[in-house]
């Protein structure tokens, strides 16, 4: 049997083209397909369909570097529901390098990395988890005897785009927090010459990572980003503005202590330290682990893990924010809440929040079709945000 992986294969080639270029005749290729048909138990009549399938474009090569990290982001992505991790690595992408999942180790692993970089030069998608320690010439993280910085720079050179997954790759995360002993930095402080997408969070929600991948595979470019490189489809709104407990905030109904009567009614966690008012994240909308729940839904305040420097800026975690953006100083937040609680306006506020959340969902769902299908430069022809797509 022909074993295609043993032959060198250049970018943009289908299997058929590659075999032809390697001196394998069309006749041999068809014979191979017939053999595959038998192995697959399909019978020879289905050989043409196999020929067609094999001649299609290759799965995009994805190289995943794991640098100075805890592997939580890889674990998160393994929990992805849409698509599942099995579908992702078998059907949608070719995950050519990832320490956690790959069979090969040592020099065989490193040669898989270099093989993928050479065969897909300029085409592969580079995923990075973990930060890059720069102090002491980078000796705080080495792979195969080389520093994380060197490994990243080499892999970034031939990448089509770079996706920095998680707070470590985004900005350095906990190890970059005061006093940052190892001089940890994020990917965008090393890679300057190509797009870097930051999937924020410690860790990020799996579906945000896979949706970003699917976006790239489907539309051929990375999603639209905010000023911090975060995809707008996920990080465009504050938790506070999407929170199902927002009505309690507006009504002045707060948890004063964990497990008090208010906690047992699911009231607002602002006073026990919730950082939702200062955190841009899709947690309330996407939720976690196949939309099972999310941190505030489990009664614990948001710690603001999608924001830079949250270990320094948002700690102690159980102290309330000194002020809530949009509402002024701390006392104002309470005052507004109590004032709303005094009258029927509370119901109106709750309704307004519910509507806001609903709109946020609709915007989120509409984003793929509204923004990304339209080629750049033709945005002017888009229907307005509230209109029906394609109906005006």
């Amino acid at each position, binding site marked *: 049997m022909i074993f295609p992986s043993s032959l060198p294969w250049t970018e943009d080639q289908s299997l058929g083209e590659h075999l032809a270029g390697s001196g394998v005749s069309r006749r041999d290729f068809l014979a191979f397909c017939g053999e595959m048909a038998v192995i697959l138990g399909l019978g020879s009549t289905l050989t043409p369909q196999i020929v067609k399938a094999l001649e299609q474009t290759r799965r995009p090569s994805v190289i995943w570097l794991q640098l100075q990290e805890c592997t939580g982001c890889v674990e998160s992505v393994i929990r992805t529901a849409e698509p599942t991790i099995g579908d992702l690595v078998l059907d949608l992408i070719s995950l050519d390098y990832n320490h956690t999942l790959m069979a090969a180790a040592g020099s065989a692993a490193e040669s898989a990395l270099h093989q993928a970089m050479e065969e897909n030069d300029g085409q592969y998608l580079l995923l990075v988890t973990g930060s890059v320690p720069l102090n002491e010439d980078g000796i705080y993280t080495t792979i*195969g005897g080389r520093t994380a910085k060197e490994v990243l720079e080499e892999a970034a050179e031939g990448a089509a785009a770079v996706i920095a997954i998680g707070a470590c790759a985004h900005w350095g995360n906990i190890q970059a927090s005061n006093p940052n002993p190892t001089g940890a930095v994020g990917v965008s402080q090393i890679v300057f010459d190509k797009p870097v997408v930051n999937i924020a969070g410690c860790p990020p929600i799996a579906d945000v990572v896979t949706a970003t991948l699917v976006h790239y595979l489907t539309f051929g470019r990375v999603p639209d980003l905010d000023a911090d490189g975060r995809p707008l489809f996920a990080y465009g709104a504050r938790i506070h503005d999407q929170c199902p407990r927002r009505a309690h905030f507006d009504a002045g109904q707060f948890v004063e202590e964990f497990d008090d009567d208010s906690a047992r009614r699911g009231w607002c966690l602002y006073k026990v330290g919730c950082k939702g008012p200062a955190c841009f994240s899709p947690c309330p909308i996407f939720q976690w682990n196949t939309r099972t729940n999310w941190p505030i839904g489990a009664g614990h305040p948001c710690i603001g893990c999608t924001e830079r420097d949250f270990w320094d800026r948002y700690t102690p975690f159980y102290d309330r924010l000194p002020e809530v953006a949009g509402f002024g100083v701390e006392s104002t937040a309470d005052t507004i809440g109590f004032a709303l609680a005094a009258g029927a306006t509370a119901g109106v506020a709750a309704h307004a929040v519910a509507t806001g959340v609903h709109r946020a969902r609709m915007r989120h769902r509409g984003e793929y079709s509204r923004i990304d299908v339209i080629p750049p430069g033709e945005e002017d022809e888009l229907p307005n945000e509230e209109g029906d797509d394609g109906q005006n």
Partner: protein
Amino acid sequence: MARTKVVVDPITRIEGHLRIEVQAEDGRIADAWASSTQFRGIELIMQGRDPRDAWAFTQRICGVCTVVHAIASCRAVEDALDIEVPRNGTIIRNLIHGMQTVQDHVIHFYHLHALDWVDVVSALDADPAATSALAKQLSPWPNNSDTYFQEIKDRLAKFVSSGQLGIFTNGYWGHPAYNLPPEANLMAVAHYLEALDWQRDVIRLHTIFGGKNPHPNFLVGGMASAINLSDTATINAERLTDIHDMIRRARRFVEQVYWPDLLAVASFYKDWAAIGGGTGNYLAVGEFPAGDAKDYDSLYFPRGIIVDKNLNEVLPYDHEKVAEYVTSSWYEYSVGDDAGLHPWEGETKAKYTGPAPPWEYLQDHDKYSWMKSPRYDEMPMEVGPLSRMLVAFASGHDDAREVITEALGRLNVGAGALFSTLGRTAARGVETRLLAMKLEEWYDELVGRIRTGDVATFNTDKWDPETWPSTAQGYGYLDAARGALGHWIQIQDGKISRYQCVVPSTWNCSPRDPQGQMGPYEAALVDNHPLVDPERPIEILRTIHSFDPCMACGVHVLDAKGDLVTEVKVQ
């Protein structure tokens, strides 16, 4: 006969960055060095922080063992401040940690370890009907039909024929060390894929109680997930039902897929029951309290020490006998590098003396790792499922004895087989079976307490730092999926003044100590250990993976004064 230097770096299918160097001679491993090549300094960063935040910081030590540091940290703070956790809080933590261990062990077997024993490419030669017959013989699992295995085979064939092997690229396929028949390989590949779906489902228990996974939320003094059967935003009957169903699915998969697969695979590799034993010393701090965490007699898995494979005696565990050495580590001690320091007195002054990267070998250097060398009473100790199961077995633990005896009987080997690479892998399965049963008991207990009206999950008495003494210190233990874990905290004026962790992979991956004693990885690699083809070192992977390494956990640093001084001396 000249020795061959062999380097495996990166060791893949683990957590973190591990480098193994060995010297091979006549197809055997003659000497070995285990090196951790990542350092982050998290405990240093915790200096001066609020002790109630410590669980979140230490949790980020590792995203694979995503709950173990958080719980150990809560216990350390609760010990220091004398906080009693409500019983419901303890049960919920047991459920979270129990499910973590079950899920972690299954992932380890299929996704991190199986490819050392299972030849994926060989599965293409399998007869789906024969695979079905094999599977039905082993288990009543519903996905055992020939059409099911045909579908898996087709999918695999399509994948392989695409020419893009992805995560399977450059595996040691066809290596003579692979013993399974094609049908067993196909069955394992099918279950590799099923386990990917299963792990995503059952871990949602963390999401219900902790809001997310990885890194669910915890709380000093209990848990934040309030219970109220009459509210939509709390733990209510709908949530409890979801949890119960998950527990049942977890147990079913463990009993009908993982356990039969483990025994089936092991039966083809019984020679590995005489390979890779190592130190012969085993330490368990015990786990899963039925009452207060400090009521050590109530632990489901008992604590204790076994020395030199002597199952006739279990020595008591005393954390005061733990000391860490830096003789072979890139640190220096003010009292000299050959001294051992208890974590209460732990020092960390990073001092890198290795070669300038890129390097070829570390084995020629006296210091070669970011791991320290913990020793118990000056002895290296293996920690993990095997240690727990041996301590339980030797302590007369009925559940452990029953399942271990079943496994030994099914494989037709004696208890001595446990001291090996295969024993380590089998013990993980034994423990998973016990915990899968235990999850149901904890669930029933929680529901029973809610039925009587006890819904408390949190103790607020010492939440306010005003109630704390000006100085306090505490010890938090936890026997994690990968072994014995200890957190030591000192609190001064409401802030963390010292924090030290001694972690499972630090015990197991420790480099040589002042007496020249190897750590457990190293000792296992030189214990009757083959290495047939240095270019394809699959045997090294088998033994190292049998420990389930977690490198990010193993390397940590805390300096009492809060300043890290690093000197780099390039040799």
